[in-house]
């Protein structure tokens, strides 16, 4: 199979890669671009560990073909926060102990950012339903939801 040359933008940075047509965006990120912050939990869109944005819209990287990235703007966990300053969402996850094993955390941070961009003042129920596609087996979600709502309040206050 001939590899296809793709030009895309990842976290605002022009990026090129070669991929086979069957590879998913998740395969490309993790195996070809060594961006392993995006995790694989199921490969079928059921767990949300590979949550990314494509042209600003939240999706699972396992449900996108790598070739589809051409000309798109891809957002991953690596684009959130910087090495000296975490985003408010990331800070709140740490402050509220909203992670235990942490495998679902990158996906949840990406999803929470998408939620708060779309709805800066979600109710608890809205947050729970928006994030229902991000499975967490450790926390029982309590502290995650608290972190999300606190991050929302903080960001509204800061805005």
């Amino acid at each position, binding site marked *: 199979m001939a590899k296809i040359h793709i030009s895309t933008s990842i976290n605002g940075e022009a990026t090129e890669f070669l991929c086979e047509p*069957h590879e998913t965006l998740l395969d490309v990120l993790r195996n070809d671009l060594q961006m392993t912050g*995006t*995790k694989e939990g199921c490969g079928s869109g059921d*767990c949300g560990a590979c949550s990314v944005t494509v042209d600003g819209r939240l999706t699972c990287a396992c449900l996108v073909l790598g070739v589809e990235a051409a000309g798109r703007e891809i957002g991953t966990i690596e684009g959130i926060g910087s090495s000296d300053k975490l985003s408010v969402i990331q800070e709140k996850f740490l402050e509220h102990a909203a992670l235990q094993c942490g495998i679902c955390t990158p996906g949840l941070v990406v999803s929470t950012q998408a939620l708060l961009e779309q709805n800066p003042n979600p109710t608890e129920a809205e*947050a729970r339903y928006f994030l229902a596609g991000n499975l967490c087996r450790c*926390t*029982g*979600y309590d502290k995650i939801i608290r972190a999300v709502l606190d991050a929302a309040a903080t960001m509204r206050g800061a805005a």
Partner: protein
Amino acid sequence: MSEAREFKYIGQSTIRPDGFDKVTGRANYGADLNLPGMIWGKILRSPHAHANIKRLDTSRAEAFPGVLAVATHSDFPSVTDQAIESGEGSLTLLDLARNVLAKDKVLYHGHAIVAIAAKTAAIAEQALALIDIEYEVLKPVMDVREAMAAGAPILHPDMFTQGLAEKPTTASNVATRLEYKMGDIDAGFKEAEVVVEREFYTPTAHQGYIEPHACTVRFEKDGQSMIWCSTQGHFDVRASTAKLLAMDLGKLKVIASEIGGGFGGKTTVYLEPVALILSRKSGRPVKMIMDRDEVFKATGPGSATRSWVKIGARKDGTITAMQGRLAYEAGAFKGSPVMMGCMTAFTPYAVANMYIEGFDVVVNKAKVAAYRAPGAPQAEFAVEMLVNELAVKLGRDPIDLRLQNAAKEGTQTIYGPKFKRVGLVECLEAARDSKHYQQALAKNQGRGVAAGFWFNVGGQSSVHINMNPDGTGTIVEGSPDIGGSRASMQMMAAEAMGIEPGRLKPIIGDTENVAFSAGTGGSRTTFATGMAVIEAAEDVVAQMKQRAASMWNVTAEQVEWVDGVALNTAGEDRLSLAEICASADRTGGQISGRGNINARGAGPSFAVHLCDVAVDKETGKVDVVRYTAVQDAGKAIHPKYVEGQYQGGAVQGIGWALNEEYIYSADGLLENAGFLDYRIPVASDLPMIDAIIVEVPNKFHPYGVRGVGESGIIPPLAAVGYAVENAIGVPVTDLPLSPPRVFNLIQGKG
């Protein structure tokens, strides 16, 4: 520990030291390591639940372009039958080898048979389709009743029931029969004025960690071989893999990656020995990652169980007798946690007469693995359901009845020792006094109360603390951090040394740079590894005092250590830890503390949960509307992560109670091997989970710690189960309480 100790750092909720890496995606998990020249391994799995392998020919697959190695059971050096320590206690080496790659016979849908390593995962998968294999399909045995019935198909013709008074002469699917007794059970029931009894069923349920099993390995013929993997115990991975491949421990380095959940399911090996064989044969590093359906089909799960329990009490509420019979599925190979089920079932109660027998039964399902308080949730579900029924029959408040019969200091347990100080009474009182318990129920709602007991374990932990010349240090421990334990290690060391937690960096050493440490399981890490950390920290402090003494030319006894500073009691001198570290080169070399221990004195943690549900009587759908988890932490080192353990355990148990179950076809094939139809709770299914931390210190731990990881999954099965029973007014016996089952109960078709 002293009762009224004041702590400087313990009990604060600090930011975990590994937190930054985890919220930014930088933390590296099992699937995140790639090596130069690395190839990919994939596994051919059985499409049948029970079959003899009549013919196996891998030659076409081996010839497929891009394939670099093929592994089968015959690649294991001759394996002898010996016990291997894993999460469940013992799995023989022979069984482990047969589970990792089947020999002659497949025993469950998804049983591994052949592994192939190829340049890409896609090529390996294509090559799997070229393996020629012929099966003689056998009738599967999918339930303990079938398995124990006369004339049942036998999984292992060489397995004879152990624990019988007379040695059996015919093979059986019952691996072991065991019993525990105390007092006179018949007399206990004679004394009883009210008796309740019921049969119960709990389904096969999976740990459901989000990270699939994964490893990257490199076999080096002359030097060190390396395994990078996601595991709860890398020393156990080393032991199992080295034994399976007849290697010296010293030739195998195992590095524990960050671990994306385990709950007991990552206490044994599946991929690691296979990958190492593939690496040995190909001469290349090999990476293997399970697909999600492989995780469900071939790893975990927890035992499905059938139980019968009978409880007798006097009218004044005194429980006089508790009797039970538990049959646990072990999966394809012997070794269910039925013994732990028998030991925990009645243990929250101080009752004079108890008798329980257990059966460890093989069936054509994946070999069970440890699952959070292995064996306890299923057994205590049955007992707690009946204690609630007993309360109704006696006209008593269910918490009040439990308080009357609660195990406490001095209570004789069925498994032997008498309890030291335990906190069940305090947990029951906290539950009784909670706002939740005072709140009235609305229409169509029901409430359940349940208690849970888990032993907690100690065992071996090794730690060293290496101090740097600037007064910072590294805590090297050997217990994989599955839920934030590095934060508590950092805090305990900081407390013992009197310095800011942030000065100390905790890391998980690999099998070469820290001495043997038992895995993270049994709620042991914060307790046992914590003790080792404290011992290492105290060792550092002792050396600090010695160094200060030598600089001041006094004896170490004349030096006091206060808040990280050495004080000369014979003068005005003071030296901070950082100053002592800075001059260590002149006082005898760098400072390193050591704590290699075999921890004893683990204190049990009791839990009491309250659950309110609302039931949609037209559809049978159950909605958890309020939930409170109370548990004894001894001393909560990091309260938020302690709460997190309670909340996570509660929700895992809620899932088990409501919707989680393995669903098999008539042929024994697993039909829901994915998160779509293996229905773990999602965020929108739940309310906030109120966590109440009770602290009854464990006097065997310097800071009073009791392990908290496991007890929290025990009460939810009955708390939810009885809440549903209370809401619909119909006895509940079987889990999960999925809508069709609840609807049938309401319709009287249960």
